[in-house]
């Protein structure tokens, strides 16, 4: 297949770029090996060698003639001070045969997320093992993550051979053990070799110290390694940007992530499944007849249809599957653990949707590959999860199309990247459980009650007075003729939520259920009063997002902790202080204060009745029924 309008370039390395990483445990010599490789390949400029000589002498006064190659890639002050690698360093080099982009990955477990960053774009991984230590937990973890991210070709470098007198039996044992591990993880292509990075044995050239090894040097392996090119697949392009310079032009810009497209092809815009035909393939260098995966282009279509950023333009004969529930492999990268039922943002292609992890099917012990039961995923843990999205998306399995199958999870409060995942397949129930259409709707139901349905969400510490105030509000609303229902957190724990405890995971699920029930009741036309501590901002936001604008009224009962503890109506604070109750909000479990509640109740010496009136007054502003002199 050739590309129309493809330009010739005359750079020395027009093809055969190899992207690889170096990984393995800390102190196995990754940075040294890579520095050595660059040095042997003749890729270090004179001024860098001079700086390296100077820095090496400064750090190693005892060995003035040894070059410390690790200083080449450990570029951060903190890394050089501590002698460790914190983040991935990218280096670019070439030989007469090939050009390379290499990512030097950190070995410490705490920086696994940075290692995954490097691995996500690599074709090949060099895994280093210290010959004296053999396979370490980090060797297994990194190999597991490489396999998870789809790296199918590994070079095992058994390093520091000089420190074990170049003994073949030691080398053979490590190779045997590693091949077994790689085989289990589905990595079939493993090259092994003995190295001594410091002295350069088998790095840039073959060593006479390892006469029993008759294979190629590391550089030769890299120069000749073949990488299986992925199947081209069907045409897919996520729309990144709608290009509308004026009324006469409307184009959809994006990078093709699968297959090829030609002018005149029938396409479908997903997930809405609108059909169209490709009219032009526009680039700044002139229109193309065809375009292929990897090219950044702008398509115009033969008809006006509603397309926005995040939609997928796909082959009309072979569109991508569409679903909103998935099973996926996940690597957790957040400092706070992944909690089931909490809502995160999921970004895949150019689309961002809300997602809930509905179940952690298992987590994986990366040392033994054992599947373990789990109620959460902590930093750097790997697991297999079920996902529930609030919008259906067009997707592909990660192994078929990494762009449409690889996603990141983003925390909705901090906006940090807290996880990444690989979609595996759609869960069947998503396709089979459809919304049943109902003729009567919320508006009709609430109109017949002469009110606007609302959810009043009372949040605050235990003993703050939520139930007392909500009870007074409900009595007052009832007296005024409104239809109400009070959902009390404590009462619900006797029934609907009696299977839940007070761990963070259980609190998230507790709030989710109360919010869903409140949502149903609001749909039924009622004014619902929900009283739950709901200590986490994230879950209160989940609750809010279920409702339409102005339907959700957050009432923050802002009674200070010492006042709640002084009241202690149920004796719970006393028990918590005595250590009889664990995970008690305000004592050993956090309460995240609401930033923008609709109503904030501060007692300041006022009675509960007065605080209740404040809530009623707020609510009546929005109600059709006006009450003369509602606020006494």
């Amino acid at each position, binding site marked *: *297949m*050739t590309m129309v309008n*493809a330009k010739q*370039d005359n*750079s020395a*390395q027009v*093809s055969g*770029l190899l992207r690889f990483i170096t990984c393995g445990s800390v102190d196995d010599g990754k940075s040294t090996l890579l520095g050595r490789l660059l040095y042997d390949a003749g890729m270090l*400029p*004179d*001024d860098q060698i001079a700086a390296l000589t100077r820095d090496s002498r400064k750090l190693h006064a005892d060995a003035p003639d040894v070059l410390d190659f690790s200083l*080449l890639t450990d*570029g*951060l*002050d*903190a890394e*050089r001070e501590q002698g460790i690698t*914190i*983040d*991935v*360093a*990218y*280096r*670019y080099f070439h030989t007469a045969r090939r050009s390379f*982009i290499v990512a030097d990955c950190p070995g410490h477990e705490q920086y696994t997320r*940075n290692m*995954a*960053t490097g691995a996500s*774009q690599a074709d090949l991984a060099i895994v280093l093992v210290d010959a004296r230590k053999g396979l370490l937990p980090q060797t297994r973890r990194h190999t597991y993550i490489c396999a998870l991210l789809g790296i199918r070709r590994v070079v095992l470098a058994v390093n520091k051979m000089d420190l074990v007198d170049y003994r073949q039996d030691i080398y053979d044992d490590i190779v045997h053990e590693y091949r077994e591990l790689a085989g289990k993880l589905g990595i079939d292509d493993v090259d092994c070799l003995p190295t001594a990075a410091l002295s350069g044995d088998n790095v840039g050239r073959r060593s006479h110290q390892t006469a029993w090894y008759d294979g190629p040097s590391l550089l030769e392996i890299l120069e000749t390694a073949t990488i299986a*090119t992925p199947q*081209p697949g069907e045409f897919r392009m996520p729309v*990144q*940007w709608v*290009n*509308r*310079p004026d009324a006469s032009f409307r184009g959809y*810009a*994006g*990078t093709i992530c699968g297959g090829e497209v030609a002018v005149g092809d029938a396409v479908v815009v997903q997930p809405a499944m609108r059909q169209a035909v490709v009219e032009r393939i*526009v*680039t*700044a*260098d002139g229109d193309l007849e065809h375009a*292929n995966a*990897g*090219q*950044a282009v*702008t398509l115009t279509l033969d008809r006006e249809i509603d397309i926005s*950023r995040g939609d997928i333009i796909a082959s009309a004969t072979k569109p991508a599957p569409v679903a909103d529930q998935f099973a996926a492999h996940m690597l957790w990268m957040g400092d706070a653990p992944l909690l089931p039922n909490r809502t995160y*943002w999921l*970004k895949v292609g*150019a689309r961002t949707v809300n997602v809930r992890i509905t179940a952690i099917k298992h987590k994986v012990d990366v040392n033994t590959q054992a599947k373990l039961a789990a109620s959460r995923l902590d930093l750097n843990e790997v697991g297999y999860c079920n996902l529930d999205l609030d919008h259906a998306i067009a997707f592909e399995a990660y192994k078929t199309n*990494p*762009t449409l199958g*690889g996603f*990141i999870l*983003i925390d909705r409060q901090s*906006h*940090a*990247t807290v996880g990444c995942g690989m979609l595996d397949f759609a869960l069947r129930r998503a396709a089979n459980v459809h919304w049943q259409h109902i003729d009567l709707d919320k508006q009709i139901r609430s109109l017949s009650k002469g009110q606007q349905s609302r959810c009043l969400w009372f949040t605050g510490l235990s003993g703050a007075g939520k139930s007392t105030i909500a009870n007074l509000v409900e009595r007052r609303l009832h007296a005024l003729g409104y239809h109400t229902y009070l959902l009390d957190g404590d009462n619900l724990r006797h029934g609907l939520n009696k299977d839940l405890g007070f761990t963070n995971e259980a609190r998230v699920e507790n709030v989710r259920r109360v919010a869903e029930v409140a949502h149903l009741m609001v749909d039924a036309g009622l004014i619902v009063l929900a009283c739950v501590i709901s200590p986490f901002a994230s879950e209160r936001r989940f609750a809010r997002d279920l409702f339409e604008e102005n339907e959700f009224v957050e009432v923050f009962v802002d009674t200070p902790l010492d006042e709640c503890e002084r009241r202690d109506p149920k004796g719970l604070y006393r028990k918590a202080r005595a250590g009889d109750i664990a995970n008690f909000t305000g004592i050993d479990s956090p309460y995240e204060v609401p930033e923008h509640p609709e109503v904030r109740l501060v007692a300041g010496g006022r009675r509960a009745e007065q605080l209740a009136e404040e809530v009623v007054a707020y609510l009546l502003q929005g109600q059709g029924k006006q009450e003369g002199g509602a606020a006494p």
Partner: protein
Amino acid sequence: MFSMSRLDALEAESIHIFRETAASFRRPVMLYSIGKDSSVLLHLLRKAFFPASPPMPLLHVDTTWKFREMIAFRDQVASKGDVEVLVHINEEGVRQGISPLTHGSAVHTDIMKTVALKQALDKYAFDAAIGGARRDEEKSRAKERIFSFRNAQHRWDPKNQRPELWNNYNTFIQKDESVRVFPLSNWTELDVWHYIRRENIPVVPLYFAKARPVVERDGALIMVDDERFTLRDGEQVQMKDVRFRTLGCYPLTGAIESQADTLDGIIEEMSVSRSSERQGRVIDNDANASMERKKQEGYF
């Protein structure tokens, strides 16, 4: 099987990054430093949004000590009219008479470049600033993400960068936070020149060898570009065939002796070069790893 050339793949990746930035941020800007990387960046910006005009302005932070030919080149770019060119000068620094010749490179760079950049970003409330830095330039840049997060004080925290998987970029930020975006991260210096040749991209003539008046100072060849340059005892202005590998403030940028007066000549010279690109930059040698410190404080 279809396979893209290296330059085509780099071009497509950069265009993808430009579009992602324009689509995800409220007020993006492209930092324009007039050098070869900026020329490539501007070329890619136009390509990414063709046939529309670029949906973001350019910002040049003018230290008032740039080569005169650079300013002339910038004004020529601005006169094309398809893209708005904003110029920001730290007027406070001008009033204090900050000069690299009297205050030294560290003070000058901090006040006229780093502080000036932050002033401009705050003034226009830009939430994404695209720059032409490449990972092969310098060690701390080799560690930086493509979408690189900055807090409300414009600081970079190299020890706690957001993971960045595939080309799936997290573009979410809170109010007052921002990102720096580097579409040329994966380009090498040689890629840049090959691309300039392939695409016929105009660059400042200072990159090409010519007889120019220079003074040898602290081991570097400094060009005497205007009357503000004062000679020290024993210094002599000589005419030499020189060119520049990078461009910055003229008193802080060392020339190299060269006969390369064409793109082919430059590429030929680079292919056999044994020194690295930023060697001529006086500011990088202030202290080891000083680029990292400057970047933490908000330098681009």
